């Protein structure tokens, strides 16, 4: 069947999954206890009557299933509710969502652009010094915690070398913009965080590209392609790579979801104003509407990433479309 039909089928499938997740998030949160209680526990000035009033105001005295459905319907109208401390959730998060997406996508793109050629070269020159170096450094690289990498980079490139700003999205004072240009300033701030992001994903992807390519290069059709007199370039990039990409796409898709979930860490380290950093702040305050909204947003992003992965996968490999 065509790629389009496959996509539609997979999207339909996502809907129950999405509902399942909202249910799960909601349940977990409510299991944590009464939000009002948790939020106001340390504040001695609030008495029980006021708490009751607060509960009523927030709709927390409704039966639990009503609360769930109210929340769901609000979600669909993109009404994310009111944060306990910062006003409308949607305004709070609007800019930040873009910041997070920017970092994630650029980091991902950077990582792939670097990792794939390295992995291919490593596979082509198996056992050579280049290959051994790359493989071993990647093995080490998969174990370095992202946040330490971030901190180290900030220290070295930010504080000691002063090459890049040590955090933030944009310089606070316009006079600090390089060449007086806002866009350049943002790019300048983007370098370090996206480099760290890219590096975090780099090692596992390089290893995966390498092993996938090695697997494919052993196949008969590669031998047959060479035997037909095709250029080495054609053999590697047209035939081998496309076949090798199949497991890579799957893996990157999965990993990306994980990376997205790790946004709180990277964004905190770099003071990047995204929903990850916001999440950390809101969790410390137990600001539930914001927490809920961010979890749902990130889940949605993960689901969309999965969908894109599936689509790419079906596009690359015609055998999948049969299922």
């Amino acid at each position: 069947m065509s790629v389009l039909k496959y996509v539609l089928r997979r999207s339909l499938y996502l809907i129950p999954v999405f509902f399942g997740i909202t249910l799960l998030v909601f349940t977990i949160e409510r299991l944590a206890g009464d939000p009002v209680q948790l939020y106001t526990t340390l504040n001695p000035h609030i008495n029980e009557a006021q708490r009751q009033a607060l509960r009523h105001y927030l709709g927390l005295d409704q039966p639990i299933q009503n609360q769930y459905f109210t929340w769901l319907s609000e979600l669909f109208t993109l009404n994310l509710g009111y944060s306990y401390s910062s006003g409308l959730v949607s305004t709070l998060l609007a800019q930040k969502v873009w910041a997070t997406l920017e970092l994630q996508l650029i980091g991902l793109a950077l990582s792939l652009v670097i990792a794939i050629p390295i992995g291919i070269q490593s596979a082509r020159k198996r056992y050579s010094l280049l290959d051994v170096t790359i493989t071993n450094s990647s093995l080490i690289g998969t174990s370095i915690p992202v946040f330490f990498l971030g901190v180290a980079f900030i220290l070295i490139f930010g504080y000691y070398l002063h090459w890049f700003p040590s955090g933030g999205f944009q310089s606070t004072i316009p006079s600090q913009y390089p060449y007086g240009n806002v866009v350049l300033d943002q790019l300048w701030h983007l370098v370090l965080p996206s480099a760290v992001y890219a590096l975090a994903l780099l090692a596992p992807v390089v290893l995966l590209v390498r092993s996938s390519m090695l697997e494919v290069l052993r196949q008969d059709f590669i031998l047959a392609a060479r035997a037909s007199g095709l250029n080495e370039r054609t053999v590697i990039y047209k035939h081998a790579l496309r076949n090798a990409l199949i497991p890579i796409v799957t893996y990157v898709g999965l990993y990306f979801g994980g990376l997205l979930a790790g946004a709180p860490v990277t964004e905190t380290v770099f003071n990047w104003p995204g929903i990850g950093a916001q999440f950390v702040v809101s969790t410390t305050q137990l600001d539930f509407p914001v927490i809920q909204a961010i979890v749902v947003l990130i889940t949605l992003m993960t689901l969309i990433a999965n969908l894109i992965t599936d689509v790419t996968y079906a596009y690359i490999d015609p055998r999948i479309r049969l299922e």
Partner: protein
Amino acid sequence: MYTDPILRVEGLRTHFYTFAGVVKAVDGVGLYVNKGETLGLVGESGSGKTVTAQSIMRIVPTPGKIVEGTIEFKGKDLLGLTEAEMRQIRGKEIAYVPQDPTTTLDPVYTVGDQLTEVIMKHQHVSKRYALNKAIELLRSVEIADPHIRINQYPHELSGGTKQRIAIARALSCEPSLILADEPTTALDVTIQAQILDLLKALKEKFNIAMVLITHDMGIVADTCDRVTVFYAGQVCETGTAEQVFEKPKHPYTEALLSSVPSLALRKQKLSVIPGNVPNLIQPPSGCRFHPRCSYAKQVCVDKDPELESIGDGRLVHCHRWKELDLKSAVAS
């Protein structure tokens, strides 16, 4: 019958440098193929037939390397050519049909894509021309509805069809020599016969020389003009099919022929060659067959024999060929 060799191989040595040691997969192979004839390469699995074919085309996979030898094709020394020059030969003058049809086609591209890319590479024609040519080719290998097949993917086709396509790809640029590596081993018996007939017909029609690798003596008898027997990376003997079948000159050939089950031998026990296929990292000294040879003498343990030409186009690799009077179990 030693007419006009289109391919001549002498003293070929191809070794694989692995972690476990150096595997001497091909160690002193010599053979020749005349224009328009079919040469069968027979031998057990691992005897070096495929590696020889790969060496001829210089597509031996790493960690293999051609260490020594001469490979002369139409007068040119193939081992002296650059990679770019070799690419002009591969697929165009010499074509290769690999063993397993289920894996010789790239699963993510259509049949049409894979055929046209070869055609366009060698003939510098437009995609439309190549596509038409491809459809013609499919027709010539007896595939029904070629215009539909051309847009299908390999996984949608049967093994027999895939093998026909592989053959079509090999023929696409009108080569003078085809190396067919066990083209029927992976197929059903009924399809086997069809493919062999197809190969024979195409060969006649286009007067292509063919090297047919197989371990099935029946196929050799049926399709090959001449035959070269392989053992443990070396050639045992070469001759016309009749010569080798009627009067084998090498003990291994004799043993091979007598191990072929046949109705005529119904009353006798099925004979088996004693021993195991030798380790190619540390092959036996002298003649590699000596541990399993019933005629082995001390000279066979000490010295590796020469591949001698003994007249009539025959080559033998044995110290004792003059003395031995070998019987063929399948002589008529």
